[in-house]
């Protein structure tokens, strides 16, 4: 057969099956192989809400979405170019979500065309016709049939046949593919591995004979040392690199896996994971440990953040260093537990009753997840502050290939800021301007100290007079000012001035910058700014905003739409936009959606174009 071979700079591939059929596994092997072949990479897990939902339904789909290319990949990208689906309901689920490109290539098991149920047969046909009508291409393959020639049970098994097939389509190094499969089945009996390798090869061979197209996706040129992992792994490993010794947690999606990664390896580093009875106890144990000199953090998501509110206030009041990670998910309340949202920015800053200054940081990439654990710990200890580090469901399970960070002996070995230890030292010996002070740590200090949730004097004793309450408030607030003064103004992506400035935070960075790059390439005067420090905000924002005609935030959270006819002057802004408006008095607009998925560069570009007044 004549093979149409096409070289592309990147491709987005989805592999989707019913839960339990192994599409995810196949995808992980494919992604690992791509990384080894030098491709830039971003993968997203497709996870059903239930453990094992009933088979053959839209809400049962499980799988993976892989964007890989010849450049560094910073986000999940736009629409899917090729989807390998195990059945027509999996296909439907992806159509409903709108993830498939019009010219998508759909590879599907043709067994459903012969299904005993007429309903299924018709639905299958209908869906495939639809794909063709949109301009897509359908490739029907005997996935199950061929698999059954090799093994007795099709599940799992089909997934390896599918993987072999994709190996052919994307010209993967077959040996390498087999090697990665072997690694993946290391722990399984040799026999299992053998049949899987057989299936892999069968898929490849079948494709070679029956398929007439191939894509070449060359690897990156520069080959700096790289790592591939997801954001939760990065938080876990980053916590070790930062010298943490205790992770105190209560399980909650999508945060739990941070602690699970740690549980498997932390002890060899001298650290451990404590699963508490609830989120209040989890943060309480972390706070108590930090108080007594062991670097500890807690990790949770929205509902858990809500439960930690009172303890966060205690951390602020007692000036015990504490890092709290919030892997954000869809809210409010239980909301969308497995989906992404950037909905906890304002609650992170303002949840605690009274005035409770704290630091809020947000990771904007997998690499940030790793690195910011060190930043967070240093600030927490040097400033005796609560630091909330925001990540989200997108980063949590998105695997990215990123530059390998250099480890620093100083950080991994950093003892908890030794505190002070002279007799007579005070528990809160605030520096007059900065509010900074050194701690007294039990068992290390020569002086005892009193730590209190009540308003207190520098000696830690209860005081209820106006002066001491005003002093303590000012000292806690000045620490934020001191930190802000130490921060650099944020760097712009794009030119230093122009028509439109896009401001973002968190996991949207890659998509925003890609959209900006596209528009700039098309001649538009747009730049972007991505904030890692959300509280305090970095200095210079008002000045920067002044260099652009318009400023607009792009976020994955709720805002009343600008063109919502029903909403009057009380328009509710997206969370960062609200903050920036209050702080800079600039009329910051916003584009925000609670879409439960990553924003696509494409949709951002479209919004920006509209804001700019059409194409240039």
């Amino acid at each position, binding site marked *: 057969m004549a093979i149409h071979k096409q070289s592309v700079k990147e491709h987005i591939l989805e592999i989707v099956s019913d839960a339990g059929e192994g599409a995810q596994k196949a995808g992980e092997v494919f992604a690992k192989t791509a990384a080894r072949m030098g491709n830039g990479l971003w993968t997203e897990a497709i996870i059903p809400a239930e453990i094992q939902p009933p088979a053959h339904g839209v809400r049962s789909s499980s799988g993976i979405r892989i964007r890989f290319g010849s450049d560094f990949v910073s986000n999940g990208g736009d629409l899917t170019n090729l989807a390998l689906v195990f059945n027509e309901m999996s296909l439907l689920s992806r159509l409903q979500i709108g993830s498939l490109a019009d010219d998508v290539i759909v590879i599907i098991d043709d067994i459903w065309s012969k299904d005993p149920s007429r309903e299924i047969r018709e639905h299958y046909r209908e869906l495939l016709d639809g794909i063709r009508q949109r301009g897509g291409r359908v490739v029907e393959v005997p996935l199950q049939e061929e698999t059954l020639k090799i093994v007795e049970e099709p599940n799992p098994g089909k997934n390896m046949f599918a993987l072999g097939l994709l190996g052919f389509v994307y010209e993967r190094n077959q040996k390498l593919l087999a090697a990665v499969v072997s690694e993946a089945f290391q722990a399984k009996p040799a026999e299992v591995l053998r049949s899987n390798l057989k299936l892999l090869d069968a898929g490849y061979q079948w494709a070679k004979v029956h398929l007439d197209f191939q894509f070449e996706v060359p690897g990156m040129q520069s080959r700096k040392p*790289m*790592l591939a992992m997801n954001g939760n792994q990065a938080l876990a490993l980053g916590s070790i690199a930062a010298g943490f010794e205790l992770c105190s947690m209560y399980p909650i999606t999508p945060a739990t896996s941070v602690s699970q990664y740690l549980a498997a390896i932390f*002890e060899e580093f001298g650290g451990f994971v404590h699963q508490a009875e609830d989120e*209040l*106890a989890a943060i309480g144990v972390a*706070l108590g*440990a930090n108080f007594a000199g062991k670097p500890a953090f807690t990790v949770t998501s929205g509902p858990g953040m809500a439960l930690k509110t009172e303890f966060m206030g205690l951390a602020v009041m007692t000036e015990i260093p504490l890092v709290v990670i919030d892997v954000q998910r869809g809210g409010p309340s239980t909301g969308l537990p497995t989906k992404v949202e950037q909905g906890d920015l304002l609650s992170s800053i303002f949840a605690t009753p009274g005035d409770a200054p704290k630091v809020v940081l947000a990771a904007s990439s997998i690499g940030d997840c790793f690195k910011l654990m060190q930043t967070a710990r240093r600030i927490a200890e040097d400033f005796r502050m609560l630091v909330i580090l925001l990540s989200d469901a997108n980063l949590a399970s998105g695997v990215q290939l990123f530059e390998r960070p250099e480890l620093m002996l100083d950080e991994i070995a950093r003892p908890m800021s030794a505190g002070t230890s002279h007799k007579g030292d005070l528990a809160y010996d605030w520096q007059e301007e900065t509010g900074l002070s050194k701690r007294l740590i039990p068992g290390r200090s020569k002086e005892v100290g009193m*730590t209190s949730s009540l308003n207190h004097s520098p000696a*830690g004793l209860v005081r209820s007079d106006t002066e001491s309450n005003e002093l303590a408030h000012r000292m806690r607030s000045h620490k934020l000012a001191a930190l802000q003064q130490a921060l650099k103004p944020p760097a712009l992506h794009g030119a230093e001035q122009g028509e439109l400035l896009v401001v973002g935070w968190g996991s949207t960075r890659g998509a925003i910058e890609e959209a900006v790059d596209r528009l700039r390439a098309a001649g538009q005067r747009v730049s972007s700014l991505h904030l890692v420090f959300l509280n305090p905000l970095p200095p210079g924002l008002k000045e920067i905003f002044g260099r652009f005609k318009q400023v607009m935030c792009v976020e994955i959270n709720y805002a009343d739409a600008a063109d919502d006819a029903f909403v009057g002057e009380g328009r509710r802004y997206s969370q960062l936009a609200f903050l920036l408006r209050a702080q800079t008095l600039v009329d910051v607009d916003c584009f925000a959606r609670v879409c439960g998925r990553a924003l696509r560069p494409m949709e951002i570009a479209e919004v920006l174009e509209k804001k700019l007044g059409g194409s240039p």
Partner: protein
Amino acid sequence: MDQLPIDEFLTDLCPFEKQLDLDDYLGEAPRWCQGCGDLGILTAVQKLLRDNQAEPTEVVCVSGIGCSSRFPYYLKAFGFHGIHGRALPISTGVALANPKLKVLTVMGDGDCFSIGAGHWVHAIRYNVNLLAMVLDNEIYGLTREQTSPTTPLGTRTRTTPKGAFLPPLNPLQLMLGVSNLSFLAQTATWLPQHLLATLQQAYRHQGLAFVRILQHCPVFSPQAFGEGGKDAELMEFLYHVQGIAIDPALERFGGRREHDPADLATAQRLASEREREPLGLLYQNPDLPSYETIRHAALAHPSPAEKLTLLNRRLDRLAPEG
């Protein structure tokens, strides 16, 4: 503090053993009401620490919120006046962080049995090495007289002006139902020697030693516990070689009963029948490993450089080549 005769010649790095005495454990002057039972507990704890020559900088006293939770201010030691109901999680963190510290946890009955009930049950199960005291006056003191879980049925309080609606929670009975319980005793503020002896035994225990202290509050629950121990019919001292020694002088405060603290079933029965309040050691299992022991035993102790190597190796596995 009585100073050693050579104190004035010595620096802080003194090689001589310095005897700690009661004054070394005095914090701020207590601000409890006159006649408050908490005062006696403070004295007992100060004696306890003196008797054990505990270095104040190595003692951490954690509390919640309530009259009772003002305790840490009045004791010279590291103090942590936390938030209502959460003294146990904070204490657990302290004990996990540094097992060498001696952790004293002070709670009120509302603090521990009501808002803190979940932590209470789980702390017992975790069996962290700490000495937990509930100063139980059967009322909310600091907020001025609302019912607590241990307030007797029918008691008039400000939230139950016609009398409490429910029979009181029996904390001993409940704790005897928690698996992994390792030490449980009960004593009272009007029995200073018994109080001290009980705390002594709790102090020596490895694991979570829980002591419920019946606390006289002359202001809001003066009638509790037979007006603070005046009715000997209501109390019964448990004695045993493994238990708390009973001074013969205590006999006017209650009856006596032999009870083997290894016998959980009998302890349960004593606690649930509640004919009389049992005073003394209800249960002790000296063999249960404490949680921080279990956790620390599993830890490696790599040097920083080794950590770096190990972590680099972990990263290698996530490198595309790896």
